[in-house]
């Protein structure tokens, strides 16, 4: 170890892995992982979300899984809860869409309207 900077770099790397053990967070992203969700492809969605959140050092975002949300035909479902706003429900999500949710909704606070349950029902 030659400098404080070198140590800080090492810390930034390591923090991504351990950040999850802090449960005190503002934003919760919930992925439906019941049998219906899993068979519709929720697992890669979940892992993508976890990876993207870690990659961007989003320390205030918690990604958790849950059981059946109750709308099996719309799976994979991702719900985003923020401290001040209401819940936003995204449906028919795949890993690519998940990435957009992270970059637009979680980072820039812009809801990706076209993936929400509201627009899905209009179609």
């Amino acid at each position, binding site marked *: *170890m*030659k*400098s*404080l900077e070198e*140590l*800080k770099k*090492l*810390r930034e*790397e*390591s*923090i*991504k*892995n*351990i*950040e*999850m*053990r802090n*449960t*005190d967070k503002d934003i919760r992203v919930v*992925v*439906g*992982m*019941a*049998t219906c969700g*899993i068979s519709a492809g929720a*697992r890669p969605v*979940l*892992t993508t979300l*976890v*990876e993207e959140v*870690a*990659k961007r050092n989003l320390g205030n975002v*918690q*990604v*958790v*899984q*849950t*059981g059946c949300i109750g709308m099996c035909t719309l799976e994979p479902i991702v719900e985003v809860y923020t401290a001040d706003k209401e819940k936003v429900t995204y449906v028919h999500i795949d890993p690519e869409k998940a990435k957009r949710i992270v970059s637009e909704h979680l980072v820039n606070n812009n809801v990706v309207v076209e993936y929400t349950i509201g627009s899905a029902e209009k179609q």
Partner: protein
Amino acid sequence: MKIFRSHVLVCGGTGCSSSNSALIKQRFEEKIKELNLDEEIQVVSTGCFGLCEEGPIVIIYPEGSFYARMTVERVDEICEEHLLKGRIVRKYLFDESAREEKIKPLSEVEFYKKQKRVALRNCGVINPEDISEYIARDGYMALGKVLTEMTPTEVIQLVKDSGLKGRGGAGFSTGMKWSFAAPNQADQKYVICNADEGDPGAFMDRSVLEGDPHAVLEAMAIAGYAIGATKGFIYVRAEYPIAVHRLEIAIKQAKETGLLGKNLFNSGFDFDVEIRLGAGAFVCGEETALMQSIEGKRGMSRNKPPFPANKGLWGKPTIINNVETLANVPQIILNGPGWFKSFGTVKSPGTKVFALGGKINNTGLVEVPMGTALREVIYDIGGGCPNNKEFKAVQTGGPSGGCLTKDHLDIPIDYDNLTAVGSMMGSGGMIVMDEDNCMVDIARFFLDFTVDESCGKCTPCREGTKRMLEILDKITEGKGTMEDLDKLEKLAINIKETSLCGLGQTAPNPVLSTLKYFRDEYEAHVLEKRCPAGVCQSLLRYIITMDCKGCTKCARICPVGAIEGKVKEIHVINQDKCIKCGACMDACTFHAIIKK
């Protein structure tokens, strides 16, 4: 670095390991692999979570689900439900966290709510065998800061300003200790970490070493820089194999990462640490005896001065700090003395870890700000005595401390307050006793301990404690007189004043404090030949009750033929012949024999 979506933390502390947490971890790994989740979920063995009573403990993140009293059999269900499908298995959660509809986060559970974790901050949070997890929690940042931005004098001043006192018992200012060693010129100085945690019932140092070994190494290097030492020793009990193992790994990883060794942070400062094992001698927790032991000799204490800061290990300037004390140091450096002083009392800043044990519901390790009342620790956090028994006393400070009563429950805990009422902080053991414990027997128990552990060098401790034990034996056998109580007190005061080291100087404390607060129990033993708690064997009588069916089993098993009676008639124990072995009570199938 690989990112996992979920972490399964299994307690690998001594308590949980003793109830098979290693097998639980192994089953998690197997099952997770079976479910093809091993790329997504990480299983980590951590240090102690503190709530040992509820062990083995497993915590699953990101939800922070607290599974208590785990068994290998429950693992599969948790994997299939929680890890695979995201459904928390409520029935296996820690009772209190799942009582209401919304699951309580750990930080709001009574046991943790009032705690403030500084020394234990990483215990149960990180994998102690992985240096990168320590670094992620700001590990070695304090060492980096000290070596690149501060002079040794500034470091000592900062530690002085924080008001940190030694957590091993005596409560001497850590900064002062360092400042005594710093100006001494010598070709070699030493930093010793005292991990010879000998107080029965105290296990916080072990937990820190098992759960956060790097914090101790980092602090030792900081201390080394402050006083100009390049070599450190950790003197640890051989009874702590897990702690030793984790320390060995930590030292190896720190060396590989360049956080121990030569020219740290390019500052020209070198520091190296070596582990030395004790071999079962309580007196080696005393600093001069400890140094003798590291030198490979019998651990016998000597007179001070010279103090270790001037003439210590192999005659070189040495500082000796306790594990918990050291674990505070990196936090103080990073957050500043003001932060540290924001907890605790003016005279005793910071927090203290206590090992709650004995007759208490939540056995375990708790860390609270100094100045917290005993009542809060014992009732709010510890949950009081089990089985609705009445609280009788709490013993603090181990064999050097004393017993306090319910009148003391509202005393704010700090060094001075505990000493003022005849006990001491000691290393932080807190053993709760209920109505079933005999205080004379407890005093005898501690004296038995010190007699055994006295190194034998000075007469008051070697002979005096033995005489005290003989008197206590007499009393518990019902042969004591009121004169004995006076003699006991006189001897105790003499030993306190004339012993060579801390062991002898504090050995009479358990007797003095029980004599003071539980004199009625001593008097019951002496005057009425009765043990009110029903503990002292010789004062007990075995009696056969009306429930006796006359099966003759007890009469046949009695080794001295003290039981008489005909078949199908109530039997009687001849008290003159009875040797109180209890064989009849074990043998009786009708529970018709009682102790009184």
